[in-house]
């Protein structure tokens, strides 16, 4: 292809000024940006340049990740009962530009009698199917449910729950997701056993603690023990993206407490995991971490007792230096903690008066949803509906 008007002119005219270069750079992934820091000095300090940072933020917010195509937002809310009142989980479908439409969805029949503390695993759906779980003392309920067709399928009990000499274990539902290699739905769970002889012994003196991971496959309709030593979750924030379940942990590999916090990512297809440590400036005893998916990217919202919330986006899985400071939200007075992120740069929070609100990253405005919720018991779910039967097979 011929160059324009003589080759000599091309180089002279080809000078893209720095702010146009920033426009181009703002659309690049974090890995490229870190590499291009070597190009010149001003590019090594991109995230400290407010002009660039604003461009990057604007593009980040407006760039619609395909994960969200055709999705809606569900709010799984728990009330804060007065004494004597019961706990109830209520599921709302939020729609409208400003979430002004809230439609209550009924839970499937297994939860009609007791709708307290229903968990929606990994805050996601697979082909229109959600995985619901409820722990009520000895009673464990786990099922698949398609809210659009109302079909539900109860997941059978695991043969590993009752193992002598142990008492019934503590169960942590860790994740739900899709194995695209086997076209299978899987549920991951952690069981923690205490020796029955230690019943009289104070908790701190339990010597015989054993734990195991188990995975349920819809295709085989059975639970299998996983031969893996993997850190268990330290919180309720568990996600599923592209066949990988993510959570964060302060346990080490054999589940002793109090290791530095890190992201654990479990691949449902090949059943292996990867840890991503947090960079040292993210770790502080006063910090509170909230793992979320922001516009398709794994992110931590980090906050403390002040009204400032920092958002760190993960540049590359497995690389602790790639947590990049992208957003700072301040001040957000009366905001207590995040409850999840939406589809286009909305972050949902709970306020100190129990009101649930959403914050728009592009306009910096906060709006109330018109419903209240209990501390740490409300979650946002990204839902993509489908009329397919559960499992699609």
């Amino acid at each position, binding site marked *: 292809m011929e160059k*324009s008007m003589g080759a000599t002119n091309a180089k002279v005219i080809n000078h893209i000024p720095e702010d146009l270069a920033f426009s181009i750079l703002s659309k*690049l992934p974090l890995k*490229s940006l870190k590499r291009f820091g070597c190009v010149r000095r001003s590019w090594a300090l991109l995230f400290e340049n407010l002009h660039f940072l604003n461009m990057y933020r604007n593009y980040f917010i407006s760039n619609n990740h395909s994960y969200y195509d055709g999705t809606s937002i569900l709010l799984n809310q728990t009330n804060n009962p007065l004494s004597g009142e019961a706990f109830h989980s209520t599921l709302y479908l939020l729609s409208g530009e400003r979430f002004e439409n809230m439609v209550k969805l009924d839970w499937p029949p297994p939860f009609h009698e007791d709708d307290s503390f229903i968990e929606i695993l990994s805050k996601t759906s697979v082909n229109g199917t959600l995985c619901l779980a409820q722990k009520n003392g000895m009673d464990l309920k786990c099922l698949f449910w398609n809210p659009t067709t109302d079909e539900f399928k109860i997941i059978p009990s695991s043969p590993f729950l009752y193992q002598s000499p142990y008492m019934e274990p503590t169960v942590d539902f860790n994740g739900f997701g899709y194995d695209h290699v086997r076209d299978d739905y899987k549920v991951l769970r952690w069981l923690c056993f205490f020796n029955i002889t230690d019943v009289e012994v104070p908790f701190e003196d339990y010597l015989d603690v054993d734990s195991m991971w188990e995975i349920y496959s819809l295709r085989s309709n059975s639970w299998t023990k996983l031969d893996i030593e993997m850190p268990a979750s330290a919180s309720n924030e568990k996600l599923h993206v592209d066949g990988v379940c993510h959570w964060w942990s302060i346990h080490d590999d054999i589940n002793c407490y109090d290791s530095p916090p890190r992201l654990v990512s479990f691949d449902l297809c090949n059943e292996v995991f990867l840890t991503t440590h947090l960079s040292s400036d993210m770790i502080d005893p006063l910090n509170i971490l909230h793992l979320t998916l922001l516009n398709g990217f794994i992110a931590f919202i980090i906050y403390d007792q002040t009204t400032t919330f920092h958002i760190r986006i993960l540049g590359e899985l497995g690389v602790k230096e790639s947590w990049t400071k992208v957003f700072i939200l301040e001040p957000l007075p009366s905001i207590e903690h995040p409850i999840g992120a939406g589809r286009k740069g909305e972050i949902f929070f709970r306020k100190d008066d129990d009101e649930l609100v959403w914050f728009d990253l592009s306009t910096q405005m906060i709006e109330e949803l018109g419903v209240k919720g209990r501390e740490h018991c409300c979650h946002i779910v990204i839902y993509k509906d489908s009329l397919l039967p559960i499992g699609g097979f």
Partner: protein
Amino acid sequence: MAEEKSQASSSKMLTLKASDGVLFEVELNIAKEMKTVQAYIDDCEDIETIPIPNVLGKHLAIVIEYIKKTNEEYDAEFEKQWNMDDLQLLLLAANYLNISGLQECLCKAIAKRIENKSPEYVRKVFNIENDHSPEEEAKLRKEYKWAFEGVDKD
């Protein structure tokens, strides 16, 4: 939304003169998409020929075509026809003429092409001189070693 933007109500024609003298007759509503041209018209209402001193005829033609045809489908295929030099010149043109849609499209296209390239390649493409000291650059390369994995060979 896919149709060309010509409408009977805005059939007044305008002439744009590129830097190499090439003349283009365009409808007013097409010309208005170029905010720079719009400002020119706002300043002198009965102007008929507007000079575009920074843009070659070849590129002005492409820009005008873009304005007429832009939609999601067109934009997706648009950038594939041009080499890196032309993309940059088109971006400079779109920037000078202040056409935000075209600027976005071109920035995304250029970003896509350099995404997996080395810093040396990027310097060459944008004609940038490296003002890092060798020690500074070595330090950065070490610190961001993970960002250099899987990069295209130059």
